[in-house]
Structures are given as structure tokens and as C-alpha cells.
């Protein structure tokens, strides 16, 4: 989120907020003792872990992100029903296949989110990201990347790639502005 670090003792404000709410949810209470303990944990944990973290791109458009989340949740709902029907239907009719999707994203975090949404949505499971990051050096890290996905029932490769790119990747590009 676009909450810049203003104070030294609070390096990642959004993560602190998240930790605080997760703590209260885990304990299922808003008792004063737990609120105080949650605040202490929300300040101390980011302070300790902050130096280990690699820098990730900021979410610059939180409301766009929220809208995208709603769309993905809706897609999970429809995809679940679709896959359930395909599983119960005749197995012989299914046309499984591998598809390579060229990515416009470069940073690790957006690619991870994209791969996860692809896994959770329409009859596809993401398998690999090519080329392997370990084999790349320095400047090469910005080269064209591919996402290999396995499709349960492949009708038309090109339309599928188009759908993934416009429906899931374009919003992510806007959200992270990269």
C-alpha cells in the first residue's frame, strides 16, 4: 500500500496494521490486553524482520487492487463450478495441454500473485516461470519471462493467453505500476 515509512520505528506501516489485525482475529477478541499486546507485536516484529526483506514494488493503486480482488474472488467461484462439472463429466472429452504465456511483469512479487491467481482460476495450474531466475545474472534479470501453465481443457490457446493477459495481468501492472 502507499503508506510510506515516515518514522524510523515504523518501517512498514501497512504490514504493522496487518499484523495487528491478524493478532486480534487469531485471538477472536478486542479485549484491552490483547489490543496492547497486538500493538507491541505490530511494532516490534517489523523492526526485527525489516533488514532481512528484499524490496518489493509498492501497491500504488489500492482501490484498483480491491476491485481486482473482488474480480478474482468471483472468478474463483465460477472456476470452481466449471472445474467441478468438468471433473464429473466424461474424462475422454478433456483436452489437456501446456501453454506458455509471455509475461510483461518483471518483479518477483507481481509474478507470484499472477501465478497464484492463475492456479486458483479457470481450469489452469501454473507450472513454471522461464527462464529460471538462478541462471540469470545482473542485467539479464529484465529479459522476457514466460509462465508455463497446464490447462485441464484446452480449446484455443490464443484466446486463453489473451484472457489471462487482459483479465489478470493488466490490472496487476496497473496496481504495481511496473
Amino acid at each position: 500500500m502507499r503508506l510510506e515509512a515516515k518514522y524510523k520505528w515504523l518501517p512498514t506501516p501497512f504490514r504493522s496494521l496487518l499484523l495487528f489485525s491478524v493478532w486480534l482475529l487469531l485471538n477472536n477478541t478486542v479485549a484491552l490486553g490483547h489490543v496492547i499486546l497486538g500493538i507491541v507485536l505490530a511494532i516490534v516484529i517489523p523492526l526485527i524482520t525489516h533488514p532481512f526483506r528484499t524490496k518489493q514494488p509498492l501497491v500504488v493503486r489500492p482501490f484498483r487492487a480491491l476491485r481486482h480482488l473482488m474480480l478474482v474472488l468471483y472468478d474463483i467461484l465460477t472456476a470452481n463450478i466449471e472445474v467441478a462439472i468438468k471433473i464429473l463429466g466424461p474424462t475422454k472429452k478433456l483436452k489437456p495441454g501446456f501453454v506458455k504465456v509471455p509475461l510483461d511483469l518483471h518483479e518477483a512479487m507481481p509474478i507470484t500473485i499472477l501465478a497464484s491467481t492463475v492456479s486458483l482460476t479457470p481450469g489452469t495450474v501454473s507450472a513454471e516461470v522461464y527462464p529460471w531466475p538462478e541462471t540469470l545474472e545482473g542485467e539479464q534479470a529484465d529479459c522476457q519471462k514466460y509462465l508455463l501453465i497446464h490447462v485441464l481443457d484446452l480449446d484455443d490457446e490464443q484466446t486463453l493467453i489473451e484472457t489471462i493477459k487482459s483479465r489478470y495481468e493488466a490490472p496487476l501492472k496497473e496496481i504495481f505500476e511496473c
Partner: protein
Amino acid sequence: MDIVISILLLMGGVLVLVGSIGLVKMPDFFMRLHGPTKATTLGMACLLFAAMAHYSQYGDGLSLKEILISLFLLITAPISGYMLIKSAIHHRIDSTDKTTGKDKIEED
């Protein structure tokens, strides 16, 4: 309220069952992965919503920690699926003959 909880429980049970049927029925490893990564997520969500409704109704006060469980499920399900399929590719597990685009897998 009881009816809503029952319907949610039933739907969740059916979806998890369908996911498991997919696990048994599909011909190869890659297709088997589709059931557990998808049908089961929604099934679990239904069960958790049922639990939330039940405990909010009959327990003491609102129960929200089920949201956390579904959140963690949403995060971990694709990752475990990804790890499974990655190791399958690494071990060169065969897929059914009609699978298209096998040449897109790169050797490592």
C-alpha cells in the same frame, strides 16, 4: 439460519467430494492437480462460512477467525500446487498422450 448453515455445509461437502473424485478419476498427474487446487478451495470456503454462521449464532458473539483460515488457504493452495507440479516436471513424469504442447517444457 439453520437452513442456511445446512445448505452451506452440504455445498462444501459436495465440492470437497468432487475434488477428491477428480483426484481418483483423472488419467495423469497434471490433470489430477486441478481438482484439489480448485474445487476444494470453494468447498473449504463454504465449510468455513458455515462454521462462522454457526458460532456467531450459537456461540458467544461474532466469530471471525474463520476468515483467517480461508485467507491462509487461499495463499497456500496455489503454492503447494506449484511445488507439486514443479517436482513432477523435474522427475519427468509422463502425461497422457493427448496432452498438447509438451515440447514447451524446458529441460533442466
